[in-house]
């Protein structure tokens, strides 16, 4: 018997007797003989020790030792030990969706605090309790804008992550939604193009800050223009950068989404991550996902509950704002713990440190022969480097020297085969940055 089954042979017999059947097989008579498995070739079970050894052997085949200068929306930030320790409490991770508020106040309050923290980061009024990841959160934002405006045309800035843009297209292929993409000029949003495309049939403009090339922007002017046509503006943001950067709330954005992985979540080869969404309070009923609200119990004590559930699938069914059932509660709580540890000053300092190191890396790399750093627009902790050789080949060669040097842009942008984006987080030391530049110089020379 596997270790997760408690009942002994004697107890099983007692239970069968109570039910009034002879064997467990008798409980499966509804499954007719012709409905039984045609095959079930699963290997025999193994002990915990054996499985651990096998999985760790597979883990050994991964190169997690590389020094990461690769970002592209997913960043190598340091995670304080307290985050991992608190989030490993079984009371958090083995609970279910807080349907019964009296015995779920821990999850509920933590999610309320998460919502509040994300609101102050983005300077928006209301947040949901999280969505799957940054890409799917952006898709949900688009659907929300379509619901609010009743329009079906979307303008998308070329600086929005190409991964997210691909997701949006696959999701909407069965729906009648028109996408217009605008190019990036000098690293930033193309104001002329976007303004030209604005009209009364447009539901939303999607922007990203910092954009995929790392450039930062102030979108206030675009947002003002869009609002003249009743168009909503969706901003996709990188939360760590908001320790420093102008917030989407201050710019006037209507819906804000982002990937929260950088807020204390490991890279995890792609997931689980943390999608978040904030908006203005007047749109709260059009927002998808769970929302936790504060109230009082029958004795007047502060309590938290899932609220505005009438938007959700288990009540509205086919008329729901989304088919989303769960969110990523645990990841949201993890991010909340991280943000609490960093605090007001910590987040600011962390953002500044990222900026300082990236600026240093830019300086050092600009002295490398065969590297040109684009300086047309300011950046945060990621920037675009032009190489004298094919970026794919350069990045591949750098692996042998222990670096994931960056993300080559040719994969998603035609004509940019000699560009890569380089990310520099607080984890990169001066020594690593210097060595990175030296190695890059050598690699370019050898090619």
């Amino acid at each position, binding site marked *: 018997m596997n270790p997760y089954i408690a009942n002994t042979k004697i107890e099983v017999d007692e239970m069968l007797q109570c039910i009034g059947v002879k064997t467990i097989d008798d409980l499966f008579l509804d499954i007719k003989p012709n409905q039984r498995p045609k095959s079930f070739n699963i290997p025999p079970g193994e002990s915990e020790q054996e499985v651990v050894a096998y999985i760790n052997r597979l883990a050994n085949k991964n190169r997690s030792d590389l020094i990461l200068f690769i970002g592209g929306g997913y960043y190598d930030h340091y995670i304080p030990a307290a985050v991992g320790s608190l989030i490993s409490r079984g009371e958090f991770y083995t609970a279910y969706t807080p349907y019964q508020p009296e015995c779920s106040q821990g999850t509920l309050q933590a999610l309320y605090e998460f919502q509040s923290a994300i609101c102050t980061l983005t300077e928006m009024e209301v947040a949901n309790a999280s969505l799957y990841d940054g890409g799917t959160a952006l898709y949900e934002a688009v659907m929300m804008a379509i619901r609010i405006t009743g329009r079906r045309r979307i303008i998308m800035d070329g600086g929005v992550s190409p991964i997210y843009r691909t997701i949006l297209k696959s999701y909407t292929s069965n729906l009648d939604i028109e996408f217009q993409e605008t190019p990036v000029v000098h690293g930033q949003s193309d104001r002329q193009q976007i303004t030209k495309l604005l009209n009364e049939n447009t539901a939303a403009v999607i922007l990203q800050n910092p954009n995929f090339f790392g450039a930062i922007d102030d979108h206030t002017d675009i947002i003002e223009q869009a609002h003249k046509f009743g168009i909503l503006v969706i901003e996709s943001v990188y939360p760590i950068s908001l320790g420093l950067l102008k917030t989407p709330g201050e710019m006037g954005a209507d819906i804000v989404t982002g990937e929260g992985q950088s807020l204390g979540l490991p890279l995890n080869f792609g997931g689980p991550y943390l999608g978040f969404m904030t908006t203005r309070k007047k749109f709260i*009923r059009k927002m998808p996902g769970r929302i936790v609200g504060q109230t009082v119990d029958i004795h007047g004590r502060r309590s938290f509950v899932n609220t*505005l*559930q*009438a*938007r959700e699938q288990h*009540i*509205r069914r086919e*008329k729901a704002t989304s088919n989303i059932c769960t969110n990523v509660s645990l990841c949201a709580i993890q991010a909340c713990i991280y943000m609490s540890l960093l605090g007001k000053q910590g987040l600011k300092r962390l953002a500044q440190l990222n900026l300082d190191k990236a600026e240093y890396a830019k300086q050092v790399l600009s002295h490398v022969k065969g590297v040109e750093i684009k300086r047309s627009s300011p950046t945060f902790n990621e920037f675009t480097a032009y190489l004298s050789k094919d970026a794919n080949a350069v990045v591949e060669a750098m692996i042998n020297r222990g670096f994931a040097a960056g993300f080559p842009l040719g994969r998603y942008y035609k004509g940019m085969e000699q560009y890569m984006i380089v990310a520099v987080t607080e984890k990169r030391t001066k020594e690593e940055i210097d060595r990175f530049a030296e190695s890059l110089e050598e690699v370019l020379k050898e090619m």
Partner: protein
Amino acid sequence: MEIEEHYLYTKEHEWVYIEDNIATIGITDYAQEALGDITFIELPEVDNEVEQFEHFCSVESVKAASDIFAPMSGKVIEVNADLESGPGLINKSCYEKGWIAKIEISDQDETSNLMTHQEYQKYLESLE
């Protein structure tokens, strides 16, 4: 279950009270009880033209959401603004203070598609 005598009813539990060519519209006692404490109502827009039995606004309670269908065709001329700040009025007084909207009726003959209070009473019994 309370039913008003001079009102007409729909199968979706809306009521309508007709005075000249103005129809006042709300939801019935049965509907408000089924929904429970109503927490929000999305009122129709004044001047909107509505068709009989078309979706016209929606109400939410803590654990339910319900669409409300126009009992008659016509133009919305007034909505009950008190419901915005106090949607619970529908629970307290569904046939009077909790009215939802007034419509200028475009086709009086449509009343033939509605139930009298006796018919509605029977209809409710059939649902049990």
